[in-house]
C-alpha cells in the first residue's frame, strides 16, 4: 500500500453516551498507526471538534471534521429517504441481526464531512439540525443537508456519506434492493458530493451487505469509501460501549439493545483495514485497492486548515473575531479613558497617566481596544437595568477597567497590577469577569441577546462528565438493579471520581463496613469505573457568554439550552482557542441577598441604604467578625474561616483582603498563616530578604501572600519587567517550572548585584510560595461584599438574614441560619396565612431581654409560603394575593391550594393564629379546636368541592368544624412536622428534646466551651450542621464536623486514627454525641479533637428503654481497633500532600445532606456536606 488509510467515520467520547475515547487519544493512536489524516465525526454535534483539530495540529495529522446526524421525519412521499423507524427484521435462527445496525427503534443516520472550505457550512448545518429537532435530539432531512451542501456558486462544501446505518444501508441489508436504489438516486439528485460508505465489523452478514452496497454504488457510478464506524480506541472498550448503549436507551443490558454485537469498531491500523477491504471485496484485489484509494481521495478533499478553525494555534497574530462596535475602537477607547481620568479625579496624577499609557500600549498592540469597548457597553447596560454589578478577578487590576467604568476598584489604591490580567506574554483574550445578582443573571443574558441579536451571541456550554455517583446510577440501571437500591448505593459514596470507586470501598472505613463490598456488585463497580470522565450531558456554563459578530454562526455550532438560550457546542477552553470573545457574567447569590436585605430595610423602616457608600471602617462590624459571629457572611462563614478571623482579628478592609487570600489551600499548606499571624500580633519582627523588597512585602509583614508580590519580587531582583515576572510566577506551579525559573532567576539577580545569601533567601520564599497564593485583585474584589454583608448583619440583622434565607448564598441550610437568627435575638415567627409572604419577611416584635450579640433584638423573621414542601409558585402567588383570610374555608376557597399543601400548612401552624390554636401546651382539653381537627376539615373541603366547580357548596356547610374531636399535636410532633415540611425547626430547637439526657450525661454546652481547659476530655452533642473534608497539609483525610446544640456551634475534628469507628456515624447521623479533647485555637476559639462519637437518637433510645447506666456503658466502650483511611496522598510539586478523598478539585455541587432509607427522619437538606463527604451507607 502506498498511502496510509484514513478513518473517515470516528466517534469520540463527545458522542454522548455512545463514544468511549477522547479525541486526543484517537489522534495519538492514528499517528502511531502512521496515518496522516483523521476525521472526527461525533454524533449530533461538533463538541469535540476543536480538541480534535488541536490534537491533530500537535501530532502533525491532517484534521477532517464532520458530524453523524440522525434523519428526521421526511416530507418526501413513501419515506423515500429512509427516515423513521425501520422494520425490525431479524434472522430466524438465533443470530442477532448483524445487518441494519442499531435497528432497535433508532433513526437512520448519515455522516456529513466538511470539505476543505466547508467548516462554516458544517457549523450551520449542525445548528439547523438542533433547531429542527427536539432539544437534545437533532434531526436533519435530506433537504436541509442539500441546502448546506453547496456554496453560493454551487461549489460543494460538504461530503455526505451514506453508510450501513443510512436508509440505503438498511434497505440493502434487508434486501429491498429497489428501495435502496431509489433512495440513493434521490440523495444523488440533491447532494453533489455524495459517497457510499461501507464497513464490516465482522457481524453476521456485515461483509455481505457491504459487498452488495458496493455493487449498488458501482452500478450507479457513486464512489464508495471504507470506514470502520469507529467508537472504541481498543476492542476491550466494547463492554463500556454496551453499557453506554443501555444508558442512552434507558433499558437494561440485553443483546437486542446493543448497537454493535462485536468488538471490532475500534481504530484499526492500515493493515487490518486492508484485510477488511479484502474480506468485503471477496478476493477481488483490484476492487479492494480502488475502495482504499477512493477513501484516500475523499479524505484529501476534506482536510481542514487547523489555523482557520483554531486561530490561537497561530499565537503571533491570531485572527480574533470581535464584535462590531460601529467605529474605530482605538480612538473610542482612548477618549473614554481620558474622560474617566477626569471623572475619577485622576487627571492630575502622573502615576495614573503613566500607568494608562502603558496599559493602552499593550491593549493597542494586541488590538484589543474593541474588546474593552464591547465589555463596557455591556456593563453600562446591566447597571442601567438597576442590577448590582461588580468586577471580579484579575480584571480589577487594570486601570483602564476602572477608568471606563467596568469596575469600581481603583488598582492604584491597592497596588494591583495590570500584568496579572493582561501582558505581552499572554496569548489570547484576557478574561473580564462580572458578578451580577444571581436572581437577575438571566435578565442580563436576555438584555445582551437583545442588544447584539441572536446571530451574534451564544452562551458557552460545558460537559458534565461521569463521576462515581452518576456512573453507578447508569451502570446500575443497565444491569437491572432496582432504582431505590441504586440510589442508596450511589449516595453512600463521597463525590469522588468514578475511577476511585473500588479504591474508596477499601480505603474508607465508612464504606468498608457497609456491605457494599459484596461480590455481586463487583461488576457494577468495575464498569462504573470505566465510565470515568466520559461526557454525560451538555449543560449551560454558569457564566460564559460569547459575543461575536455576524460570522459567529460560521465558527461555532449553536444549540438550545434547557432554558432556550442559544448555546455554543464549545466549552470555555474551546471558545478561547477559537478566538471568540467570552465575557463571564456570573450570578452571585450574595449580591441578590444584599439587594433583598436593602429592600427589606426600606420596607420595614422606611430607610434607604446606599451600601456602596457605607464607611468601610465600622468598629461594631469588625468586632462582630472578630467574635466569629460570621455565619451568613460572604466568604468568612465556614468553620475554618471562623477560626481564622478569630485569630487574625481584622480591623480594616486590607485585613479582610489578607484574610480571604490566606484561606486557600496553598497558603494554608505552605504554612504562610502562622508566620503572618506571628508578625501581625508582634510576636516576631517582620523579616525582608533585602531592603529593596520591603516595599513589595511590607503590607503583609514580609510574608508573601499575593501573586502581585511574587511578581514584584521577581521584577525588583531581575529587572525583567512585570510581564516577564508574571510568566515566571505561572511557571512556579510545577517542579520542572520551578527548576527553570531558578536557573533563570538566580544568575540574573546576582548580576543585578544581590549577594548570594540574599538571592538564596529570596529564592526560598519564591520556592515555598510555589504556584499558590492568591491574586490580590480577586481578593480585593471579594473583600467588598464580605464587608458589606457583615455590616448588614451587624446593623440590620433580621433584614440581612431574610436575604440569606431567601437567596441561599452560603454553605449552610436554612435551619442553621435560623439558629443563628435566634442567637442574634431575632424572633423566628411561624408560618401564618395572614402574615407570611412569598419570601422571608421582617416584622417588628417586642424586644426580648438583653443578651450579648443580640444584634437583632426587636425584629422577627416570618416563615414564607414558599418554604412549604411541594407548594407551587402559582399557589404561593394566590395565597399572598388573597390575604387576609377569615377562616380555613375562606383560604381553601380563594387561595385554592392543593390538598396536601393545605394540610401541610395546617400541620406547621399556618392557621394557629387565625383559629386561636395553641398546640404543645401542657394539657390539651377535649372540646378545644386542634390542628388535627383542621386537617380533617381540609379533607371535608376537598371532598366537598368537585373538580372544576368552585364554591358550589354553601359556606355554612364547609364552615362547620366540630372542635376537639381529635387530640392536639405534641411539641415533638410539631417540630417533627416542621422539619419534614419546612426543612427547619421553627417553634423549638430540636435539641430541646434531648435536654434531659444531655444533663444526665453531663454534656458540655457550646456556650461553656470557652471555660474548658486545654486538653480536657469532654462530651458534647448537637445537630449536625456541616461536614467537610478539606485538603490539609498532612495528606490525611480529616473530617471537620460542626454540630449545634442551640447555644452555639461546636467544631469537631476527626483525624484518620479515629475514623475506623466514627466515620460511618459522622456521615450517616443527623444528631451526634461525641467525646473529644479541647483544643484552644485562638483567643476566643475552641475546637475539639474527637475521640469517639455516637448517633444521639440511638443513645436516646437506649436511655428510654434501658436507662442511664446502659447509655454510660455504650459511651465508655473502647472501640475495637480498625484500619484507618487508605489511599495514597496526592503530592503536589511543592511537597504539599493531600488525601485523595479531600475536597480538592471536586465540583461544588454536593450539598445534599439528605437522609434516606430512615423513615421518620427528615428528608430535606438539613446540613452542609462538602463533596468529600460520604452519604449514609446502606444496610
Amino acid at each position, binding site marked *: 500500500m502506498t498511502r496510509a488509510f484514513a478513518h473517515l467515520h470516528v466517534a469520540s467520547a463527545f458522542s454522548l453516551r455512545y463514544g468511549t475515547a477522547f479525541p486526543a487519544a484517537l489522534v495519538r493512536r492514528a499517528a502511531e498507526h502512521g496515518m496522516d489524516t483523521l476525521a472526527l465525526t461525533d454524533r449530533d454535534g461538533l463538541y469535540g471538534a476543536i480538541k480534535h483539530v488541536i490534537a491533530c495540529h500537535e501530532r502533525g495529522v491532517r484534521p477532517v471534521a464532520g458530524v453523524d446526524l440522525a434523519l428526521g421525519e421526511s416530507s418526501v412521499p413513501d419515506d423515500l429517504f429512509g427516515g423513521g423507524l425501520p422494520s425490525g427484521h431479524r434472522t430466524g435462527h438465533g*443470530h*442477532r441481526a*448483524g445487518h441494519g445496525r442499531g435497528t432497535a427503534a433508532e433513526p437512520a443516520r448519515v455522516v456529513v464531512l466538511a470539505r476543505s472550505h466547508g467548516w462554516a457550512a458544517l457549523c450551520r448545518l449542525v445548528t439547523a439540525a438542533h433547531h429542527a429537532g427536539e432539544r437534545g435530539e437533532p434531526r436533519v432531512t435530506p433537504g436541509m443537508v442539500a441546502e448546506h451542501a453547496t456554496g453560493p456558486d454551487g461549489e460543494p462544501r460538504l461530503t455526505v456519506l451514506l453508510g450501513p446505518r443510512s436508509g440505503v444501508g438498511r434497505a440493502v441489508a434487508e434486501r429491498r434492493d429497489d428501495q435502496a436504489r431509489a433512495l440513493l438516486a434521490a440523495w444523488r439528485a440533491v447532494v453533489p458530493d455524495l459517497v457510499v460508505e461501507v464497513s464490516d465489523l*465482522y*457481524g*453476521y*452478514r*456485515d*461483509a*455481505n451487505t457491504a459487498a452488495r452496497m458496493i455493487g449498488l454504488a458501482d452500478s450507479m457510478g457513486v464512489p464508495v469509501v471504507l470506514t470502520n464506524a469507529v467508537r472504541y480506541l481498543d476492542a*476491550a472498550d*466494547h*463492554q463500556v460501549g*454496551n453499557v453506554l448503549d443501555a444508558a442512552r436507551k434507558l433499558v437494561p*443490558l440485553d*443483546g437486542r439493545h446493543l448497537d454493535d*454485537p*462485536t*468488538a*471490532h469498531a475500534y481504530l484499526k491500523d492500515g493493515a487490518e483495514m486492508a484485510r477488511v477491504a479484502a*474480506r468485503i471485496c471477496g478476493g477481488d484485489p483490484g476492487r479492494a485497492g480502488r475502495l482504499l484509494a477512493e477513501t484516500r481521495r475523499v479524505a484529501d478533499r476534506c482536510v481542514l486548515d487547523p489555523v482557520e478553525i483554531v486561530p490561537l494555534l497561530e499565537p503571533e497574530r491570531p485572527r480574533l473575531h470581535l464584535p462590531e462596535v460601529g467605529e474605530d475602537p482605538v480612538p473610542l477607547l482612548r477618549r473614554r479613558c481620558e474622560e474617566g481620568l477626569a471623572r475619577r479625579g485622576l487627571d492630575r496624577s502622573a502615576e495614573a497617566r503613566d500607568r494608562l499609557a502603558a496599559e493602552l500600549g499593550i491593549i493597542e498592540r494586541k488590538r484589543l481596544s474593541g474588546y474593552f469597548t464591547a465589555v463596557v457597553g455591556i456593563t453600562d447596560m446591566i447597571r442601567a437595568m438597576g442590577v448590582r454589578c461588580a468586577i471580579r478577578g484579575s480584571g480589577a487590576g487594570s486601570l483602564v477597567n476602572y477608568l471606563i467604568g467596568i469596575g469600581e476598584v481603583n488598582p492604584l489604591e491597592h497596588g494591583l497590577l495590570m500584568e496579572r490580567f493582561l501582558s505581552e506574554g499572554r496569548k489570547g483574550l484576557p478574561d473580564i469577569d462580572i458578578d451580577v445578582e444571581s436572581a437577575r443573571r438571566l435578565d442580563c443574558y436576555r438584555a445582551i441577546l437583545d442588544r447584539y441579536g441572536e446571530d451574534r451571541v451564544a452562551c458557552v456550554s460545558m460537559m458534565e462528565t461521569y463521576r462515581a455517583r452518576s456512573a453507578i446510577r447508569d451502570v446500575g440501571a*443497565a*444491569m437491572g438493579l432496582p432504582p431505590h437500591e441504586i440510589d442508596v448505593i450511589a449516595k453512600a459514596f463521597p463525590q469522588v471520581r468514578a475511577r476511585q470507586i473500588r479504591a474508596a470501598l477499601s480505603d474508607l472505613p465508612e464504606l468498608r463496613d457497609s456491605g457494599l463490598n459484596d461480590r455481586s456488585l463487583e*461488576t457494577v463497580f*468495575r464498569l462504573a469505573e470505566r465510565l470515568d470522565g466520559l461526557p454525560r450531558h451538555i449543560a449551560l456554563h454558569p457564566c460564559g457568554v460569547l459575543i461575536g459578530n455576524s460570522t459567529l454562526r460560521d465558527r461555532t455550532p449553536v444549540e438550545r439550552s434547557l432554558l432556550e438560550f442559544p448555546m455554543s457546542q464549545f466549552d470555555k477552553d474551546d471558545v478561547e482557542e477559537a478566538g471568540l470573545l467570552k465575557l463571564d457574567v456570573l450570578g452571585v447569590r450574595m449580591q441578590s441577598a444584599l439587594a433583598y436585605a436593602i429592600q427589606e430595610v426600606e420596607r420595614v423602616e422606611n430607610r434607604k441604604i446606599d451600601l456602596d457608600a457605607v464607611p468601610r471602617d465600622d468598629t461594631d462590624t469588625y468586632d462582630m467578625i472578630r467574635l466569629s459571629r460570621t455565619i451568613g457572611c460572604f466568604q468568612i462563614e465556614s468553620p475554618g474561616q471562623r477560626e481564622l478571623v478569630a485569630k487574625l482579628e481584622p480591623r480594616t478592609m486590607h485585613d479582610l483582603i489578607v484574610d480571604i487570600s490566606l484561606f486557600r489551600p496553598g497558603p494554608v499548606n505552605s504554612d504562610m498563616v502562622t508566620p503572618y499571624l506571628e508578625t501581625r500580633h508582634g510576636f516576631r519582627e517582620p523579616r525582608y530578604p533585602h531592603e529593596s523588597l520591603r516595599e513589595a512585602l511590607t503590607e503583609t509583614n514580609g510574608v508573601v501572600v499575593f501573586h502581585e508580590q511574587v511578581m514584584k519580587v521577581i521584577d525588583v531582583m531581575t529587572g525583567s519587567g512585570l510581564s516577564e515576572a508574571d510568566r515566571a510566577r505561572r511557571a512556579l506551579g510545577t517542579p520542572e517550572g520551578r527548576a527553570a525559573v531558578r536557573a533563570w532567576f538566580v544568575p540574573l539577580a546576582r548580576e543585578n548585584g544581590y549577594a548570594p545569601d540574599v538571592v538564596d533567601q529570596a529564592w526560598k520564599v519564591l520556592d515555598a510560595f510555589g504556584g499558590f497564593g492568591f491574586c490580590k485583585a480577586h481578593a480585593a474584589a471579594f473583600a467588598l461584599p464580605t464587608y458589606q454583608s457583615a455590616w448588614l448583619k451587624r446593623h440590620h440583622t433580621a433584614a440581612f438574614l431574610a436575604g440569606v434565607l431567601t437567596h441561599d448564598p452560603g454553605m449552610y441550610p436554612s435551619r442553621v441560619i435560623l439558629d443563628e437568627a435566634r442567637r442574634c435575638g431575632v424572633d423566628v415567627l411561624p408560618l401564618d396565612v395572614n402574615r407570611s409572604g412569598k419570601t422571608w419577611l421582617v416584622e417588628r416584635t417586642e424586644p426580648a431581654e438583653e443578651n450579648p450579640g443580640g444584634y437583632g433584638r426587636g425584629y422577627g423573621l416570618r416563615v414564607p409560603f414558599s418554604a412549604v414542601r411541594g407548594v407551587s409558585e402559582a399557589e404561593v402567588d394566590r395565597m399572598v394575593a388573597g390575604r387576609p383570610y377569615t377562616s380555613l374555608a375562606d383560604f381553601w376557597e380563594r387561595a385554592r391550594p392543593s390538598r396536601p399543601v393545605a394540610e401541610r400548612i395546617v400541620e406547621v401552624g399556618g392557621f394557629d393564629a387565625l383559629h386561636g390554636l395553641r398546640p404543645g401546651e401542657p394539657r390539651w382539653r377535649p372540646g378545644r379546636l386542634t390542628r388535627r381537627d383542621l386537617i380533617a376539615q381540609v379533607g371535608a373541603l376537598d371532598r366537598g368541592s368537585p373538580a372544576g366547580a368552585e364554591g358550589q357548596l354553601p359556606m355554612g356547610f364547609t364552615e362547620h368544624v366540630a372542635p376537639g374531636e381529635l387530640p392536639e399535636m405534641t411539641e415533638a410532633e410539631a417540630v417533627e412536622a416542621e422539619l419534614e415540611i419546612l426543612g427547619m425547626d421553627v417553634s423549638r430547637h430540636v435539641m430541646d428534646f434531648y435536654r434531659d439526657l444531655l444533663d444526665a450525661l453531663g454534656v458540655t454546652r457550646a456556650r461553656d466551651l470557652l471555660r474548658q481547659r486545654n486538653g480536657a476530655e469532654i462530651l458534647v452533642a448537637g445537630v449536625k450542621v456541616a461536614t467537610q473534608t478539606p485538603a490539609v497539609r498532612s495528606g490525611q483525610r480529616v473530617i471537620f464536623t460542626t454540630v449545634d446544640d442551640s447555644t452555639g456551634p461546636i467544631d469537631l475534628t476527626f483525624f484518620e486514627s479515629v475514623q475506623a469507628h466514627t466515620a460511618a456515624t459522622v456521615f450517616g447521623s443527623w444528631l451526634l454525641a461525641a467525646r473529644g479533647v479541647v483544643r484552644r485555637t485562638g483567643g476566643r476559639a475552641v475546637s475539639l479533637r474527637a475521640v469517639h462519637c455516637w448517633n444521639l437518637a440511638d443513645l436516646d433510645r437506649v436511655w428510654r428503654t434501658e436507662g442511664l447506666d446502659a447509655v454510660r456503658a455504650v459511651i465508655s466502650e473502647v472501640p475495637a481497633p480498625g484500619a484507618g483511611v487508605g489511599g495514597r496522598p496526592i503530592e503536589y510539586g511543592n511537597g504539599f500532600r493531600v488525601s485523595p478523598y479531600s475536597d480538592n478539585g471536586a465540583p461544588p455541587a454536593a450539598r445534599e445532606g439528605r437522609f434516606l432509607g430512615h423513615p421518620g427522619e427528615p428528608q430535606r437538606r438539613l446540613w452542609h456536606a462538602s463533596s468529600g463527604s460520604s452519604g449514609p451507607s446502606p444496610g
Partner: protein
Amino acid sequence: MSRLYGDPIEVWVRDGHPAQFVWRDRLYTVREIQDHWVVAREWWKTSDADPGERRFWRVGAAAGKEVGTYELRFDTASGGWLLLRAWD
C-alpha cells in the same frame, strides 16, 4: 434443510481460518469460506471480567467427494470448537 448438532470437534487452522476438521470420526477438508462473523458474549450474564467472543464460520467442506455446508464455532474463552450445524 439444516440440522443442529453442537458437537465438540477438532479443527486445524490456517491463516486464521479453519482448514480441516474431524467430525464424527471423519476428516473434512474446507474448500471454501462462505461466511465468517463474530458475536461478543453477553458478558453481563457471567462473572468473568472478559468472557471473550464467539467466532463463526460457514464453510463448504468435504470428507470425500461430496461438498456440504457446515457451520463451525470457536469460543475464545474456552478455546473449544463446535460443529453447530450442517446442511444436507
